[in-house]
């Protein structure tokens, strides 16, 4: 299945995790990291996080809002929400297909 978040290469998966993390409200970098780690059980390194954040911001899928102290929160844009919804819908369809095939293959 082709990725729907365009041209992010190896940062496509972290970008998707970040978009999902921001889908319930703005978060700063550390909150995104802990949210992703809590949700997936896998660590998201700070270098990877900011490489993905920078790409998402360049593409207009997220935007920075006014910093609180030195921490700058990010939030989804309307375009980012549309792209995320499309990608999650595709992933759900793909997961359904895989589960159906598994069910059929089961002896």
């Amino acid at each position, binding site marked *: 299945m082709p990725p729907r978040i365009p041209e992010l290469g190896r940062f496509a998966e972290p970008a998707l995790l970040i978009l999902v993390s921001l889908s319930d*409200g703005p978060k700063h970098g550390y909150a995104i990291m802990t949210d992703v780690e809590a949700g997936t059980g896998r660590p998201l390194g700070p270098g990877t996080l900011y490489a993905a954040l920078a790409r998402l911001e360049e593409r207009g899928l997220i935007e920075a809002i006014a910093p609180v102290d030195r921490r700058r929160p990010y939030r989804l844009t309307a*375009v980012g929400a549309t792209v995320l919804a499309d990608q999650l819908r595709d992933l759900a369809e793909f997961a359904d297909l895989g589960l159906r095939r598994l069910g059929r293959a089961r002896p």
Partner: protein
Amino acid sequence: MIGLLLRFYPARWRARYGDEFAALLDERSLGPFDVADVLLGALDAHLHLRGLGAASEHAKGFAMSLRIGGFAAIAGGILWFSGLALSSINQGGDALFALAFGVGTLALLIALIGLSAFQARQYPRLVWAAFVVPALGAVVSLIGMVGMATTGDLPFIGTWSGWSIWAIGVLALIVGSALFGIATVRARALSRPAAATLAISSIVVIPILLGVGVLDDLLPAAAAPLGMALAALAFAGGWVGLGVSALRIDRARPVAQAGGTA
């Protein structure tokens, strides 16, 4: 340690993200995984910033196509309907009608290009297929208007008069608008109610323009012009609605709840 790690990043990157990145590293006890990840991130930032100019231009072009498409759809819908209204009440003469219709058609063509470019990121085949028919229709109708202005009722291209060419172009524009509305409903990127309004009103207007007289059969004589006017108004309203939704997306309003800041 944090200052040293930050120095591996390019100055341009540090100017934008340095403070918040340092704050993030302050909040986290750095293990070997984090240090390695930060160093790889710094390498990526150096490589990525070299190509940033091109990516930035691409994003600007993307937003610009949405903005131009949005404004053009609003202007095109209003002018197109104004031209139709002027021709119906026949006040102000042919010149005003031609001006409003011509500029309106040109604006709708620009809107089609801008909004198709935006939507094609998601459904390229569907959106571009729905773009071709109305765009050709808009171009043909503009050529027809030039013919009407230059040769009047005489043949303009072959045996076709300017009016005939214009009418075929307008018909294609409306048929294509129905396709564009359907494609837009599917693509989900712009307002679906506005796209559905455009598609339905276009389908209603087509038999009227073809002279089938469906409304004449279905409605009392006095109500038929009203039905035509309402369908035309809905057609223009559909374009205006799509334009407004495009401008709203261009502003990239936040969709998340403001109270959720973590």
